[in-house]
């Protein structure tokens, strides 16, 4: 953990994880990059547009034996919609993502680059079109391709493993297995490929607490 002040506005900022180099200042929305002990303002980040997501920074939940807290978010947009990726910091210091799309949630953990077969890796790197319904192997599990599309960053907040300014483009491939498993392969503008794998979950499955309240809506029953 590192407590510091924003190089742009001087507001206090806190880096909760030593592995996450980027923090978007809560006050002035400046993206602050940490290199060693140095903090550097690297640009302004657009405010995340209001949505009716029940998730917010500070939501706590569980994935198996480990509890987590959401500490960052990137909102992505594509031609026909938008979704959120929430960065989860686990109690063991590791991180994962909670994907949130059309009211459904994916609990995802990073898959080491060795989890992608070389042919899959080179195929994704090539940027060639991926057939919907085709089969890809990630971390020894076979997934079918749900969709594959180019997505653009709309906004980001909190702590992040990379700088996510407006207009950042990524190729995103969504995968799923018959039994509720899911995975995501992302290729960034520089051709770097990252893979994540996990499961579809509900808020109840995550035992999510500290959710946003909405006027007139009862909180989910699992909290009772």
């Amino acid at each position, binding site marked *: 953990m590192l407590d510091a002040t924003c190089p742009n506005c001087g507001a206090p900022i806190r880096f909760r994880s030593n592995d996450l180099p980027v923090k978007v200042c809560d006050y002035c929305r400046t993206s602050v990059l940490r290199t060693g002990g140095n903090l550097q303002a690297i640009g302004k980040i657009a405010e995340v547009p209001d949505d009716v997501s029940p998730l917010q920074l500070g939501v706590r939940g569980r994935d198996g034996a480990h509890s987590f807290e959401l500490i960052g978010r990137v909102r992505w947009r594509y031609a026909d919609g938008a979704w959120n990726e929430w960065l989860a910091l686990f109690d063991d210091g590791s991180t994962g993502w909670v994907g949130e799309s059309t009211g459904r949630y994916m609990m995802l953990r990073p898959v080491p680059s060795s989890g992608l077969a070389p042919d899959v890796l080179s195929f994704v790197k090539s940027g060639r079109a991926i057939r919907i319904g085709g089969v890809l192997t990630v971390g020894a599990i076979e997934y079918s391709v749900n969709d594959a599309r180019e997505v653009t960053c709309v906004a980001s907040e909190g702590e992040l493993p990379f700088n996510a300014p407006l207009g950042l483009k990524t190729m995103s491939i969504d995968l799923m297995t018959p039994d509720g498993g899911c995975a995501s392969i992302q290729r960034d503008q520089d051709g770097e490929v990252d893979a994540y794998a996990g499961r579809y979950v509900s*808020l109840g499955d995550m035992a999510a607490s500290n959710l946003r309240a909405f006027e007139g809506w009862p909180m*989910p029953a699992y909290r009772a």
Partner: protein
Amino acid sequence: MQPAAPVPQPVSTVPAPPPSTVRALSCPNCGGIVNVRAQGLTVSVLCEHCGSTLDATRPDLQVIARANEALKTPQIPLGTRGTLGGRVWEVVGYMERTDEEIVWAEYLLFNPYEGYAFLVDDGRRFSLGIMLDRLPTMGWGNRLTLDDQGYSGFGTPYPVHVTFVVGEFYWRVAVGETVQETDYVRPGTMLSCEESETERTWTRLDLLDWGVAEKAFGIPARRREYSHPAPHEPSPYKRQLGEAMIIGIVALFTLMVISTFAGGEQQIGQTTTDAVLDGPEKTVVIRGLDLPSARSRVVVDADAGAIDNAWVDLDYSLTDEKTQDSVDTYGLAEHYSGSDSDGSWTEGDPRPEVSLSSIPGGKYDLIVTLSAHRWNGGSSSSSFSMPTGFAGSSIFGQDGGQTIPVTVTVKRGGVFGGNILLAFLLIAIWPLIVLFKHFGFEKRRMAPISGSGGSDDDDSGGDDD
């Protein structure tokens, strides 16, 4: 960072009221109020005032397709909330779709914590649809398995078009949009696969009980009718059929028990006498026959086992000792044998059994009158053939005539075989009726895929009041 000033109340103790999920925006085409109920998730909004399609992914609600048409109003208005299965859902979108034979309605439901669901209305019944986050596994013969439950393919893939849309959706919706749909069914549930060029989605549709959706969303309850069942509609006769079968089996078992035990006849009297062939009539009386039940079945057995080419007429009169009321009947013991060009033959029953039913309880006497006769039509090989000189003569005494021992036995109780059969048929009637109704329903349920279709009367199905 704020200057130290006396603050009457720390800000943190006055939490801001939770935000509403509804944003009221104005339609750039008609200026009417457009309520966006799932901001951030909604992609398309169709203005309920002018029908224009608006792009909800842009803050200015850019018009994608301008329209100024008279809109249909969904039966459940947009914004209505209802509780189904313990979850609150809000109607945010409505569309009508067709497979070119029938039109049905789909309401898009939203809950900020649960996501989306579909309320599908086929005009008769409602189904609640949830998009699957897992895939069914393919089995043999166009069958699927999901969560250990089997589903059978219902027909072939068919195109589905959107014919009308209003409200908001999390995808780009447009009239004319077509997907290829394939249905798999089991009683009460349908798995529906929708494929477009870019996506394949699976939805699980659970048929809701009659009146559940109507009550939840405050619309009049639909009348129960089963003339046009949904493909995933469980037969309303199935439970009845099960009950009828169980009752039938129990009744049948009872019937068998009754016929086994009650079938045990009890001997209450017997006598043996000699009948003189072509001799005078003889009368014997069996006295003191006791019939304790209010109504009894009485069986009179005669056994003239030794006769051949002769017959014995038996007249019975069952007489109540008190009232002298009598019931008369008769039996005929006969046996003939011989040989002709076809070989040897025998005919006749030397042990006739006579049944009397519903005899009132009491003490009875059975008066039996016998007369035995020789038959001379048989061949000479007959073992009892006598010289014709003996026949028909009454000048010989009793001991001079051929005698035949006849035993008459009286029994009570027992059940008529005919009654058992009748009871069996009566028991079978109800299960059979239900079975036919069930098969009729199943035939109608599968009708859309069994060829002729019969969609010409779809309109007449909905106009009952």
